[in-house]
């Protein structure tokens, strides 16, 4: 595994009608790494992901992907360069079947015209394997809107796997999952490390400890501390930020 950074944020600031969600944010993620972003609510974690994938535009600063400046690019161009994103709020295609959802996610071919003559039976097997991986193989033909909350999370992860991006950004992927499901998710993420670079915003510390190489703690729009789990837990500034909540062990 090389040590070249694949995602870099330099002094990024994002503002919403005067409210500084993120300011002076500096972040660097290495290729193949699994990075967790944690922090109290309002720390700017989701905004950080938003800036990387192009959902919001930085007021100042630069965002680099593989050394190239993507700060001003539209989100679909950023996606084409290899960034996939899962959002905090469930965003699957409720009226389509699970199978159809995965087919949309399988976005190797993007053109309107080329897709107009492309019929969908071709990728069937690959998608079924994907569904099996996340345990959705027996509901392939159900409308996605009928899935339970946990299953919806699975589908979202499966969509990202279908997209097969180099960089995968996830916002609270285990929200609402049982312990078992969380552990399964951890297994999947660990297997993706190396081939993919993963950045996860999470609250579940057990999960975070299980999967991450490096943890970045954010607070009030900036990076507060960075390091492996043990370092971060013992960091005085982090303790202070989480003052009263018994430290991040209970985050």
């Amino acid at each position: 595994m090389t040590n070249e950074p694949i995602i870099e944020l330099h002094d990024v600031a994002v503002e919403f009608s005067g409210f500084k969600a993120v300011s002076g944010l500096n972040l660097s993620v290495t290729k193949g790494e699994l990075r967790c972003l944690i922090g109290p609510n309002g720390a700017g974690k989701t905004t950080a992901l938003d800036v990387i994938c192009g959902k919001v535009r930085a007021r100042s600063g630069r965002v680099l992907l593989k050394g190239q400046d993507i700060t001003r690019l539209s989100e679909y161009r950023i996606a084409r360069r290899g960034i996939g994103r899962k959002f905090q709020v469930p965003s699957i295609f409720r009226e389509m079947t699970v199978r159809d959802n995965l087919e949309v996610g399988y976005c190797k071919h993007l053109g309107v015209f080329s897709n107009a003559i492309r019929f969908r039976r071709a990728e069937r097997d690959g998608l079924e394997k994907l569904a099996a991986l996340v345990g959705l193989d027996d509901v392939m033909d159900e409308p996605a809107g009928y899935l339970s909350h946990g299953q919806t999370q699975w589908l979202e992860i499966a969509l990202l796997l279908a997209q097969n991006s180099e960089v995968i950004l996830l916002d609270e992927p285990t929200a609402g999952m049982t312990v078992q499901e969380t552990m399964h998710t951890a297994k999947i993420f660990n297997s993706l490390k190396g081939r993919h670079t993963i950045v996860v915003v999470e609250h579940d510390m057990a999960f975070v400890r299980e999967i991450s190489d490096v943890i970045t703690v954010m607070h009030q729009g900036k990076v507060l501390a960075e390091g492996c789990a043990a370092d971060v837990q013992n960091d005085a500034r982090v303790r202070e930020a989480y003052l009263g909540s018994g430290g991040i062990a209970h985050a």
Partner: protein
Amino acid sequence: MIDIVSQISVGLSIASILLLIALGLAIIYGTMGVINLAHGEFVMLGAYAVWFLQTYLGIGLFAGLILVFVLIGLVGWVVEWSLIRRLYDRPLDTILATWGVGVILQQGVRLAAGAELRYVKMPDALVNPVAFMGYDESAYRIFIFVVAVALLFVTYILVFRTEFGLQLRAITQNRDIARCFGVNAKRIYSLTFAYGAGLAGLAGALVSPLKSVSPDMGTNYVVDAFLVVVAGGVQSLLGTVASSYLIGQASGVLAFLSDDTMAKAIVFLSVVVLIRLFPQGLFAMRVRRS
């Protein structure tokens, strides 16, 4: 010079009418997310109401105004209560349903009152031009402008300085939380819709002496009003006012330079281009959608 001044005054009265209609629309859309395609028919009903009051009951325009506001407001209330409230989570379907309401209202009027053009008399007091800044101005147009400004002021007070307005703004921002605080969303929605409808009816009443009254007069106005709302940005009262006056004035000038149709076409194209540059309208707030 006379032409320019009269041009400005014509533009102002067009803008004022537009403002009244757009205001009602904007309030309804801004608060409830409802696109009311029957809004034009509310305007039309206001005009017919005045004609009816004048022709059959001998009530003049001035006295009729309040009556019309209340009457059309009532119609709005009924529409909201019976139909709109079932469609809050379906914005595209609301458009369709209100379009249906518009059709029913228009056809109803056509069947009841006939499709011929009707005429409303201008109140005697305002028929003669008044001298204004050395030029003769149509008193009626000035009257329209004054009423529009007055209503704008009233609306502002209502929305920003009353308890009702506070609750209205609360449910606009976040309906569920506001309800947790005891705000009766249903009632507010009904009242808001009724208010918007009343404003439209008033606009119709005011414009009736200037143009003839017919069952299909509504469509033109609703399209103009929507362009105003789209250009100005929905969440902003200021935006609606500014773009009413911008578009009203521009229409007036363009109509003077070429003709009504060209004016409309140019305004339309301008709005389409404008929207490409400012998709949220000219005065939108940037909010993080979560």
